[in-house]
Every structure is written in C-alpha cells, then in structure tokens.
C-alpha cells in the first residue's frame, strides 16, 4: 500500500510516532502501520506515553455510544474460555462458540473414563448407598447391613469416598449428586430426571475440562471418570446452559 512509506510513517526510520500515535489509538491505521506503532512504543517511552494519552481520549469517545448490555451468555462463555487450558490459539471469530467447544473436547482427552468392571460395581453400590441415605436410613444400620452384604462397598462407605448434592441453578434443574473418591481418583455423577442431554465440566487448578456427556436412559443420567488431577468444582450443562453446580471437598 502506497501510504506505508516513510513519509507517512516517520517512526520507521527511528523518529517518534507523530500523528500515528493518535491514529493508532483510534484504530484508524491499517494493520501494518499499527504493528509498526506497537513495535516502536516497545522501545520508546515517550511515544508509549503519547499513545497511552490517546488511548484514554479514545475511550472517552466511547462514553457517548449507546449503552448496550451484554447477553447473559457472554460472561459465562468468557469465564469458561478463560479457565480452559487450550492447546490451540484463540479460535477464529466466525467459529467462536464452536471453537471453544472444540478445545474443551481436546482437553477432555486428558481424562480417562473409568470403565473397569470393579469400578462400575463400586459406583453402583455407592449410588445404592446414597439412595439408602436419602430414604432416611440411620448410618449405623446402613454400615452394618452393607458390611454384611459387600466388604468392598463397606470399605467405600467408611473411608474411600465422599458425596455431595449438586446445587440446582434453574427451576427445572435435575436432582443430581456426585460421589467421589477422597483421594480424587474417581468421580461418579448421577442425575435424576435429566430433562435432556447433560454435559459435565470440571474445574481444577485453574483449568476447566469437558468431562463429557452423561449417559442417560431418560430417567437417570450417569457419568463416571477417573481424572488425572483433582477436580474441585463440577458444573452440569444442558444445551449450553448451566443447570447445576457442586464443589468437591477432599
């Protein structure tokens, strides 16, 4: 482009930015010229200060714009994206939502579904324990009967796992519970009356992971996992809407 010559970009030869400082702050430069400004101010405090002043004034111009509030979805989408450890660069704008979802799927590959027969047996037994708890059984009676039925289950009850009810976020949220190993090695999510496809997202040490879609027979949805790192919070989503959340305390 002919307007990129030194005459128009005096800073190209080492001089200060001149008017380009203000044009840059307004977004009125072409990408190549804008990049030159950015490179220049990295080593020129004088021009950096001038650009900063211009940025503040440009922001003042925005105060007169019609105020438009964000949708409810934007904040949630941003938080989730910020928490996701992405292996690829920021998604293309035109595929923003899709790309976020794709990266979450990639992240989920760091988790290994726990599908051994023994674990399934434990999980089913644990779910039974919860059902019994919900029915109002006294803990001493529960422990005694379980001990007579299944030594492995007794071990689970006494020392190996915790459980937590998920907090519903909507009126139609499913009743959901999470069983999880106290050492963090496995997690079992069960939701009653899911009302559609549920997807679980786990939040650990600064990273969010797509835990996957819960298996459902229409009445109950379940998901079993063995995370490689501690999950401290789990959110269930139905159709991209968060419906339940729970915090796991180890």
């Amino acid at each position: 482009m002919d307007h990129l010559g030194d005459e128009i970009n005096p800073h190209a030869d080492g001089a200060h930015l001149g008017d380009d400082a203000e044009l840059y702050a307004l977004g009125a430069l072409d990408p190549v010229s804008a990049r030159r400004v950015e490179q220049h101010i990295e080593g020129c405090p004088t021009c950096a200060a001038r650009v900063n002043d211009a940025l503040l004034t440009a922001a003042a111009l925005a105060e007169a714009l019609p105020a438009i509030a964000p949708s409810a979805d934007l904040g949630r989408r941003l938080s989730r994206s910020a928490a996701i450890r992405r292996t690829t660069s920021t998604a293309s704008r035109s595929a923003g939502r899709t790309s976020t979802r794709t990266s979450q799927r990639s992240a989920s590959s760091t988790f290994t579904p726990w599908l051994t027969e023994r674990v399934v047996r434990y999980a089913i037994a644990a779910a039974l324990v919860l059902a019994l708890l919900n029915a109002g059984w006294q803990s001493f009676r529960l422990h005694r009967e379980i001990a007579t039925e299944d030594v492995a289950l007794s071990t689970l009850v006494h020392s190996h796992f915790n459980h937590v009810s998920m907090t519903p976020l909507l009126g139609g949220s499913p009743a959901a519970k999470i069983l999880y190993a106290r050492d963090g090695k496995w997690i079992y999510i069960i939701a009653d009356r899911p009302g559609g496809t549920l997807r679980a997202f786990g939040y650990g040490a600064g990273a969010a992971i797509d835990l996957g879609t819960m298996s459902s027979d229409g009445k109950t949805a379940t998901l079993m996992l063995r995370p490689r790192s501690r999950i401290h919070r789990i959110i269930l989503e139905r159709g991209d809407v968060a419906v339940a959340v729970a915090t796991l305390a180890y």
Partner: protein
Amino acid sequence: MDALVDDFIQRRPQGLERVYSEWSVLFVSVARQVTGEASLAEDCVHDALLRVWRASNRFSGDRPLLRAYLAASVRNEALAAIRSDSRRGAREERAARLAPAPVEEAPVVDPVESERLRVALERLPGEQRQALVLAYYGNKTHVEVAERLNVPLGTIKSRIAMALRKVRAELADAEGQR
C-alpha cells in the same frame, strides 16, 4: 497496585471476571458500534478480552489505562472483523445508526462524560471534527477518510490527530473545573 489491575495482569481468573463485570457494557457498546451485529460484537469482546488477558503481564498501567487499552483492543478486534468482511457496507449502515447517540435520545455508556465530550467535539474546528467523527464513529481508516473528504493523506492524519489532542485538552479542562 490496584487489586483489579494486579489480578488481571497476573492472569488470575478473578481479574478477568472483575474487568468484565465492571466494563462489559463499555466493551459491548464499542464492539456493537463497529459491527452493528450483536453476535459478532460479543464474539469480538470475547476474543479480545481473552487474548489480552492471556498476555496481560505485558501490560503496565493503572485502572483507567487498562480500561482504555481493553476498549481499544475490543474495537480493533471488531474493526478487523468488519474490514475483512465483504458485507461491510450493510454492517456500516447498521453501525452508523448506533453512533453517536444524542444524550437526550438514548442511554449512553456514561451520560456525564458524554455531555462533556459533546461540548469538546462542538468546540473543534469543523474540518477536524468531521475527520475525527469519520475515523472513530465512522470506523474508517485515515486513508478512507482522506478518500471520502478528497483531502491529502498527510492533511487528514494531522486533522484527526489534532482533533483528538484538542478533545483530550478540553476534557482535562472540564475535569479540572469539576
């Protein structure tokens, strides 16, 4: 250091959440004015904030500058989107209907600042005001402004830059009189 700025440049999630909580209306308004489309505008806000936050340890400044820097980043994201879009003409028409809004007709991002800005713009020489308004509210590059007004590039650059400097001075004077 300001806790919000510190959280943001340390790339703590709460830093991004606080920035969004306090300034999301500004960011969305800026992006929407450029794109004229709600969905694309929010995509631009999302992408710009995330990109800056992930590289935020490069930022050095106070809270007003962070706000201004982020607003500029959102605007640049939106400008890049429309400038690479073949449907730009239609978008610009929609965007033009959004900006700037007279104070008495629609809620603005900041009514007080908006009134001070209106006064500052009115005090500009007509040629400078026209160039600045086309560049910022019309979302045009200085080359496009020069073509639109049939004025040499160097002249347009000077008019735009001078206009912005005068607005800054006017706003500073108004601030000092408060």
